[in-house]
Each structure stands twice: as C-alpha cells, then as structure tokens.
C-alpha cells in the first residue's frame, strides 16, 4: 500500500473514532502538542494512560471484591481514572467513570460491579482503537510519509 493510501486510511480511521465518541476534542490537544522536538508525545501519553488505567482497574476489581467494600477507596480510584481518561480525550471511558461515581455515592454494590464491567469494556475498546491508530501512524512514518493533521468541523 502506498503512502497516500495509508494516510487516507488513517484519516478515515481517526475521524471514525471521533464520530463514534471514543475520542473527543481533548485528544486533538494532545496531537497539537506533538511536534519535531517532541515527536513521540502522543505515544508516550497514551502508553502512560494504558499502564495507569490497567493498574487502576486491577485495584478497583480487588476493592469491589472485598467482603466489606470501602466505597471511599473505590471512588478515589474511579476519580483518578476519570481524570486521566478526560485528559487524553477518552470520552467513553470518562463517561463510564462519571456513572460509576454516582453509584459509589449510593454505595450500591450491584450497580458498581456493573459499572466496573462497563468501564473495563470501554477501556479495552479504546485501547484497541488507539493501538490500531498508532500502528497506522508508525507504518506511514516507516514508509517515509508524514502523519496528516486532522481538521474537525466541531
């Protein structure tokens, strides 16, 4: 596949992520922070997000598995995850965290367990999408092309 085709495929793919609500405008902020002096900024932040989120999801699973659940602790973890997902523009993860927090306030075990599943699902979905997108970018760069900037008419 030649570079022009790859670039078009990347643009279409990235646009779909915004259309489907996986990413929001904050992700564009991240892309704008990437330049010649910081060519790997997006990859670095996204990798940090993956590591951080997986740890938080593990902590959440353990916290909700206790005989007596400490909802303050659970809420603190969700607050962190909501913060990081919001900062990178992972909109659906962020929204799932917002719902999660309201059930933490109610101290509703069943609902919070469902929320955890929901957050995990959204997280793995966006992780998959972002990895695919970054792989497409890598292929373009390896073929000597440049990564096209996305213009969105919001």
């Amino acid at each position: 596949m030649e570079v022009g085709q790859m670039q078009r495929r990347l643009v279409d793919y990235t646009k779909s992520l915004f259309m489907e609500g996986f990413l929001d405008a904050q992700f564009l902020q991240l892309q704008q922070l990437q330049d010649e002096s910081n060519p790997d900024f997006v990859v670095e932040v996204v990798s940090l997000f993956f590591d951080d989120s997986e740890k938080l999801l593990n902590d959440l699973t353990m916290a909700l598995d206790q005989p007596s659940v400490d909802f303050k602790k659970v809420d603190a973890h969700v607050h962190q995850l909501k913060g990081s997902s919001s900062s990178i523009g992972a909109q659906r993860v962020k929204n799932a965290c917002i719902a999660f927090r309201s059930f933490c306030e109610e101290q509703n075990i069943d609902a919070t367990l469902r929320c955890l599943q929901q957050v995990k699902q959204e997280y793995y979905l966006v992780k998959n999408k972002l990895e695919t997108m970054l792989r497409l970018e890598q292929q373009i760069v390896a073929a000597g092309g440049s990564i096209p900037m996305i213009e969105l008419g919001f």
Partner: protein
Amino acid sequence: MAHSVLSDWIYLPAQTPPSLLLNYFSFFPLKSNQIFLISFLTFSPSKQSLLYKMLSCGAGSGGCSKDMAVELGDEPHVLAVDDNLIDRKLVERLLKNSSCKVTTAENALRALDYLGLGNDTLEGTVSEVNMIITDYCMPGMTGYELLKKIKESSVLKEVPVVIMSSENIPTRISQCLEEGAKMFMLKPLKQSDVKQLKWHLMKCRN
C-alpha cells in the same frame, strides 16, 4: 518574501520564522500590532511567546537585534503539582510549549519540600519559582491547603498560585480565590488555558 497587503493588515506565510518577521516590523512599524495578531494564530506556541517578548520590547519601532531576543529568553519557572501522572505530563508539556521551565511534584508535601517550606527541606536546595499551579484534589494535603501554606509564608506569599480541578464547584472556586489563588482552571487543560496563564504571569512580572 511574498506577502499581501489588505488595508491595515499584512498577511505573511504561516511558516514565517520570527527573525524574518522582525525585519518586517522594522520596515512597517505602524502595522506591527496587526501583523502580530495574524501571525500569533499560526505559529506554534513556543514561537508565539518569543514573538510576544520581541514585540513588547519595541521591536515594532525599528530595531530589535538578535542579541536582545536572546536576552529576553528568560523562562519563568513553574512548579506543577498533581497526583495524576498523565495530568502531570500534560501540564508539563503545555507549560514547556509556552517557554516555561517546569518542575513537577506528585503531591503537596513534595511541593512544600521543594519550596523550602517542608519538614524535609535540605539546606541550600530551595529553588526560585515564579508560579505554582496545583491540582485541588490530592491525597493527604489538598491544593487548597497547599495554597494556604504558601500564602502564610512571608517568603512565598507573592508567588502566584493557580488551582486546577476537574470539578466545577462554585463554592470551591470562590474559596480558592478568596484564599489568594490567582486563577482557577478547569481540567482538562488546553493550550489556550496555558496561554492565558502565561499572559497573566508576564503581566505580574512587569
């Protein structure tokens, strides 16, 4: 370099390097503010702040040498405090893009140590900081409590403190402003927020 003149505005190519712009300013001093407005929008953030510094020294009125540009290159030192790793990375990049020197701290206690107000501050390690930007919600000591400690210090009370939060709670905001915070910013931070901060900071210093 090709440019077009449209009434009082001069349009320059988006990639015009600042040094070439200075040459234009010395030829078209009356129009320098307008040129600044257009080019400001198209430059990358680090070039924008350099251009602002050059202009504020009177580059428009006909003579700003390369030497002066270097002299003006002092970068404000910002201490950024946030317990979230991704947010720390983001705020650091945003600030560096606005030509700030950045030190990060992962909680309020570490910040206090760095500022010389902590119990564990080592002799001779206190650094000068021009602004502190801190998250509100942090484990242990909150950003609000950190703000209070800073304002209680005779040495540090003049340092502008900015509070950030992901939650838009009016009572929280007014509480921080009343305690002396310079600004309250909603997360997630964007480049435009940090630009606003920088202008504020430059104003304070002058």
